[in-house]
């Protein structure tokens, strides 16, 4: 029995129950989500001042029709073949040795009727208004994948590390500043070897 005059003690035995109740509430409402996706830059709306003449052989045209079928370089291809085709186009290095466009790190077929140099090669993606979004993302994913595969190859050769890993470390806010400077240079070097020249033209209506 409590002493007379002293306040009675509050029973704290149910504290755990109350805490459990709150805990369960927060457990149920929590969504720990980190969003991820494909990063793209849209072209600015002002047309470039000077018309740049691009050789047809330096353009790799990908068209998706409304049924989700794929035309790449004027032939019908399966989506699963797209990455391979895009890689062989980008990595072709068709300019002959000695010319300024010569690509000394390319391992492609050096076919003179395909792209001259990875920095000249452009992938153009066109789609119909009826194209399903899922197909479009798959195609985008494959093209980004083609670039990443080639960049990884060069990064492994030069720095013994994957490009995607270096880029992720560079973009991670937890990476130390001193490491970032080093990574920035390496990432930029690799990006210059295979720049993403990837144009998304206006949607066609037919």
């Amino acid at each position, binding site marked *: 029995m409590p002493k007379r005059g002293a306040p009675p003690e509050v029973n*704290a035995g149910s*504290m*755990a129950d109350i*805490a*459990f109740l*709150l*805990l369960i509430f*927060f*457990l149920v*409402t*929590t*969504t*720990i*989500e*980190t*969003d*991820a*996706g*494909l*990063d*793209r*830059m*849209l*072209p*600015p*709306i002002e047309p470039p001042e000077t018309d740049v003449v691009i050789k047809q052989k330096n353009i790799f045209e990908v068209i998706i029709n409304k049924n*989700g079928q794929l035309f790449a370089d004027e032939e019908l291809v399966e*989506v*699963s073949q797209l990455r391979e085709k895009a890689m062989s186009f980008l990595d072709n290095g068709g300019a002959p040795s000695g010319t300024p466009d010569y690509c000394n790190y390319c391992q492609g077929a050096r076919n003179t009727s395909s792209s001259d140099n990875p920095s000249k090669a452009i992938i153009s993606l066109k*789609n*119909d*208004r*009826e*194209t*399903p*979004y*899922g*197909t*479009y*993302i*798959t195609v*985008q*994913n*494959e093209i*980004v*994948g083609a670039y*990443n595969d080639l960049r990884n190859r060069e990064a492994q050769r030069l720095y013994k590390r994957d490009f995607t890993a270096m*880029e*992720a470390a560079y*973009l*991670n*806010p937890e990476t130390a500043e001193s490491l970032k400077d080093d990574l920035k240079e390496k990432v930029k070097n690799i990006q210059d070897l295979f720049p993403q020249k990837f144009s*998304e033209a*206006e*949607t066609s209506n037919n």
Partner: protein
Amino acid sequence: MSKFSKKKDGELPAVSTASLPDIVFMLLFFFMTVTVMKDSSLKVDNILPNANEIKKLEKKDRIIYIYAGAPTQEYQKVFGTETKIQLNDKFANATDVGDYILSERAKKPQELQNVLTTALKVDKNANMGIISDIKLELRKVNALKVNYTTYDGDAFRNLQ
């Protein structure tokens, strides 16, 4: 008779539960701090497509979200089943996207206004037409950095 009374054999001492509230509170604080309350409820179907060459979206304060997809069951009577755009909490037309981006941009601190990313959360069954309209509007207001938000997974699953 021994001086020290022997403990009774075969009886385990009870485990003290006095620290249980502390443990539970620790968990509680963890979940309280990591919880993010949803700021807008989805009125459209939003099953994102899969992709595997993805980058994480760091820094949530620099992102503007645009949702698109067919309206969910309860809104289908009013809005039909065609793909719609959702900005904040309401349905919108493609022409409203520009104003929305500008007003969201104005809400952000000055130093972030040039580095904003627009995250497009679009249902995988949507048509590209609406995406093209959004992209055109984004280009008009010079919001050129976009992120097609996807789930991490095999991209070929989208085709089925």
